[in-house]
């Protein structure tokens, strides 16, 4: 009886080891059998040859807001590709693109995106949607910034009052915007005792600000998606500098052997398609009474940017 148990345990371990071996081979088989399925879909971008995986490097805000949870299955059904979403900060996402470690990028830091386009690493860059950044904080508002119309003025007031401010500190799009506002204000908060860097995504940073009754800069989408778990309130909004625009682009397959060119192109097409834009327009309306993102495909960036 005891021997039987031991044999059983050994068998389970051996079976697991075998499964791993088979699993690796099985993956390739799956690729082969999935291909005809891709061909069967009417979409012109259906998979015909080449790798099935599309790696999307994107910002934490698109994941933390839940938008990509909705879009991922639609993209996969429509094209037959397998979308791998790696949610990091915009800085890290752009770095992945630069190394050829991603096929498509969905990011929100235009000034950092353009060098990639100019160097030819990113191609097919298209406007997808926008929302805006907001400055949030506790209801007490110790620095008294509520209702200010200039983000730089609000930051100056926070600086002078020494109230706690949580920065992302992770080179993300939101972090880049925050640094831009500090520069507009002519201030450098680095090293100040009230200025803390979370080094984490937008969702986690909002949680920290919430716990510490601190101020932070956030995109409206992530804030709304989490608002039921937050005591933070919107204090400053509407400054044109707080405009937050998302672009999608594909990584140039001519620059890197392993980049999935057709897959990246399919994702760009998917994001700017009418059907996807409609979903973005509706996303969050049922829950928050307002959309988290406003679709912009086909528009001119200059035309939507507030002056």
């Amino acid at each position: 009886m005891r021997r039987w148990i031991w044999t059983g345990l050994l068998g389970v371990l051996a079976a697991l080891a075998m499964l791993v071996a088979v699993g690796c081979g099985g993956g390739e088989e799956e690729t082969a059998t999935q291909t005809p399925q891709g061909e069967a879909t009417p979409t012109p971008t259906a998979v015909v040859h080449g790798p099935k995986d599309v790696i999307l490097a994107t910002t934490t805000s698109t994941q933390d807001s839940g938008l990509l949870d909705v879009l991922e299955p639609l993209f996969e059904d429509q094209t037959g590709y397998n979308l791998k979403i790696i949610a990091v900060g915009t800085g890290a996402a752009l770095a992945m693109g630069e190394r050829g470690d991603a096929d498509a990028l969905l990011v929100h830091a235009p000034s950092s995106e353009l060098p990639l386009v100019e160097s030819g690493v990113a191609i097919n860059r298209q406007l997808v949607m926008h929302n805006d950044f907001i400055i949030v904080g506790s209801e007490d508002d110790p620095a008294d910034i509520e209702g200010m119309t200039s983000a730089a003025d609000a930051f100056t007031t926070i600086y002078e009052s020494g109230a706690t401010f949580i920065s992302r500190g992770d080179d993300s799009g939101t972090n880049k915007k925050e640094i831009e506002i500090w520069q507009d204000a002519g201030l450098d908060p680095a090293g100040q005792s009230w200025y803390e860097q979370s080094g984490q995504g937008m969702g986690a940073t909002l949680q920290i600000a919430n716990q510490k009754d601190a101020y932070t800069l956030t995109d409206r989408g992530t804030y709304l998606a989490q608002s039921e778990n937050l005591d933070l309130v919107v204090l400053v909004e509407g400054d044109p500098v707080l405009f937050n625009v998302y672009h999608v682009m594909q990584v140039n397959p001519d620059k890197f052997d392993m980049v999935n060119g057709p897959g990246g192109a399919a994702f760009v097409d998917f994001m700017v398609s009418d059907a996807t834009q409609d979903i973005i327009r509706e996303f969050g309306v049922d829950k928050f009474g307002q959309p988290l993102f406003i679709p912009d495909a086909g528009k001119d960036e200059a035309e939507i940017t507030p002056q």
Partner: protein
Amino acid sequence: MDLIWDGIREAFRIMASGDYSVWEIAVRSIFVSGSATAISLLLGIMVGSLIAFNQFPGRNLAFSLVNTGMGLPPVVVGLIIAIILWRSGPLGDLRLIYTPTAMVIAQTVIAAPIVTGFTAAALRNLHPKLRSQLYGLGASRLQMLWLVLWEAKLPLLAAVMAGFGGAISEIGASQMVGGNLAGDTRVMTTAVMLEVSRGEFAPAIALSLILLALIFIVNLILTTVQQQERRS
């Protein structure tokens, strides 16, 4: 406090309803960490018996290296494996990054030294005359190894438990080489992190409870076997 009760209630609701693909994530956790443990056991027995039974220069160094490996920070392992497996890395052609296989590799690197260390210690602690006696009875090398391992099966089981515990509870490596992809490489620990960063604490607590229960059940089974063996 409400949060904890909500979390516990949510845990049972999730487990009963089967939504949130929580079972799928749990099964994947067991599969990935179990595979890593199984491979680690093979490696651990090979390397462990090698350094436990043989006298060679640098043997102490080998022991120290294995013992250092037992405390490898998962996030460092994750970074190194990720750099190697990224498309831009030396093994990028294998296209293993962001796959369960990559996670098994990373967790094996974490669990193998733990299993090896336990195995080597267990084998070294066997009665020193046991091996010469077995040789005297005419056992071949392979038979010898088998009999010695059989003799050390209880500490080996402890090695498996420690290795599995290390693998299933790490998060840094899984996040980095797996990418926490829903339905593909999301395991219990990375799912908990995601829910917390989304501010969804109830499912995070639920997932944590399920993870704890999982580790408990695996250890309960292994400990039961161990105890039965000891009693006889």
